[in-house]
């Protein structure tokens, strides 16, 4: 019998499959399609202190094996998320909830985290220092080790919940940033956020998305994500939630062999709303095919021997 259970900072997940923030709303849209309690955990839409509309449209550009998005952290603000969205999510999902948090100052990260820390239903805080779609914030906190460390320390001060720092791949040395977060007290690393990219419309000769650039995700970025998870796994002791282009059960296992303790699924949800359900259902069969009895045993397995 295949054992798909994994743990993240003391939180047990029935399987490692987690819909990634920003691709699954607050869960309830998907709960109308299938029982989302099959998921290992769920990371909800990135939350900020203030409500945000986000960027002008068009916000989406298609690419080969992926898409660019430039949503820009549209969300109703942390107070409304707690008052309105979280109860709706909890009504359809009983598993561990990961609260994804963004900010435009260290104080905003800490204040937003402090409010979500009080929510019993939230199991893990995922701190996004990597959004490529907002200026003066987001990614700028995740491109320098000292800034990432300061955000980590500020959030750790206001919560007892496990704190995962979500990193951007748009840096020269992601290992240095992951290590800085670990030293500042991070309980884990989520990686990778989207790769900064762009498309140009040949008819208008202008960038397709209004914000010119956006975050590229989808199956095309899986090899980049695997490489970075591999590098960070060799440098830190804290668990890694791996993501980037995962769309099949085989990808989950590959990501775990590189060092991920759990895996997030993003872009795949947007083209197949049943993607996560299918991956969860396929896992035991794929594990059997490759002779895996216990998923926990394969974390980082590609580094040995």
């Amino acid at each position, binding site marked *: 019998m295949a054992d798909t259970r994994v743990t993240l900072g003391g939180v047990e997940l029935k399987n490692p499959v987690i819909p990634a923030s*920003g691709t699954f709303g607050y869960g309830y849209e998907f709960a109308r399609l299938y029982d989302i309690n099959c998921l290992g955990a769920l990371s909800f839409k990135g939350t900020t202190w203030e409500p945000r*509309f986000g960027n002008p449209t068009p916000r989406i550009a*298609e690419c080969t094996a992926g898409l660019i998005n430039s949503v820009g952290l549209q969300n109703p603000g942390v107070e409304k998320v707690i008052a309105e969205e979280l109860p709706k999510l909890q009504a359809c999902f009983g598993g561990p909830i990961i609260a994804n948090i963004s900010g435009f100052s260290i104080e905003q990260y800490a204040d937003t985290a402090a409010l979500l820390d009080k929510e019993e239903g939230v199991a893990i805080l995922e701190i996004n220092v990597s959004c490529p779609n907002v200026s003066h914030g987001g990614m700028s906190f995740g491109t320098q080790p000292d800034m990432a460390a300061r955000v980590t320390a500020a959030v750790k001060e206001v919560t007892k919940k496990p704190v995962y720092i979500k990193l951007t791949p748009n840096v020269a040395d992601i290992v240095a940033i992951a290590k800085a977060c670990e030293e500042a007290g991070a309980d884990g690393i989520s990686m990778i956020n989207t790769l900064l990219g762009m498309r140009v419309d040949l008819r208008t000769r202008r960038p397709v998305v209004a914000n010119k650039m956006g975050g590229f995700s989808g199956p095309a970025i899986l090899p980049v994500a695997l490489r970075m998870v591999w590098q960070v796994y060799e440098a830190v002791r804290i668990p890694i939630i791996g993501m980037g282009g995962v769309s099949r059960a085989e990808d989950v296992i590959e990501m775990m062999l590189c060092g991920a303790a759990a895996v997030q699924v993003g872009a795949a949800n*947007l083209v197949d*709303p049943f993607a996560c359900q299918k991956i969860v259902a396929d896992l035991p069969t794929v594990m059997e095919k490759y002779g895996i009895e216990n998923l926990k045993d394969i974390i980082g397995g590609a580094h040995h021997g």
Partner: protein
Amino acid sequence: MKQGIFTVCSNRPLTREVYEMTLRGDTSAITAPGQFVNIKVEGFFLRRPISVCDCGPDSLTLVYKVVGNGTEALSKRVPGDGLDLLTGLGNGYDLSSAGERPLLLGGGVGVPPLYRLCKDLIAQGRELTVILGFNTVGEIFYEHEFKALGAKVIVTTADGSYGQKGFVTDAMEGLNYTYFYCCGPEPMLKAVYKASATSGQFSFEERMGCGFGACMGCSCKTVTGYKRICKEGPVLRKEEILWQTQG
């Protein structure tokens, strides 16, 4: 919303760029005219959102324009091919405010969703006028289909090569209508918004990620808050529209 495999029954050009595709499959998730389906086209990552032109219990008609590689690939599908569709997407037209003499205004590839709406309004015993606007005679489609439903049909062409010369708004002047429904390119929607004497509903278009409300890719600002074109839209009421797309 439902996901299902549909079988292509026919796929034929109506004009040089506009195709009509009929399909067979489970349409039970489609609840109102003006909704859309999202089609997986092999070889392309994102699905293609296409408005529903007409549907029966197990039949679906889509009329779409070839504008890029995805819709071009769609135009190559042949009878017997299977297509993966998400159906029942978006908030369609609300027929309850139509009054006795509703006016339908369609521009170019904005015409198709009005067909089912026209059929339903006529079935309710309402007296329909439909204005179909095109650039030129070669781009006209569905004039006779709307007439066959029993609607009074006015065709306008921008270059005057057929019907009344001008835009749909030129043909609106002097008409006595109780309410309107409009679908077309944004400049046309804006013109109808200004020229209309009554309340009405507009169908909008935007580049979408998922098409079912998950990604926030197609949001817009309205008088009543932020809306997703794919979820709370694509149909919005005249009173809630804010004509600004900048964030």
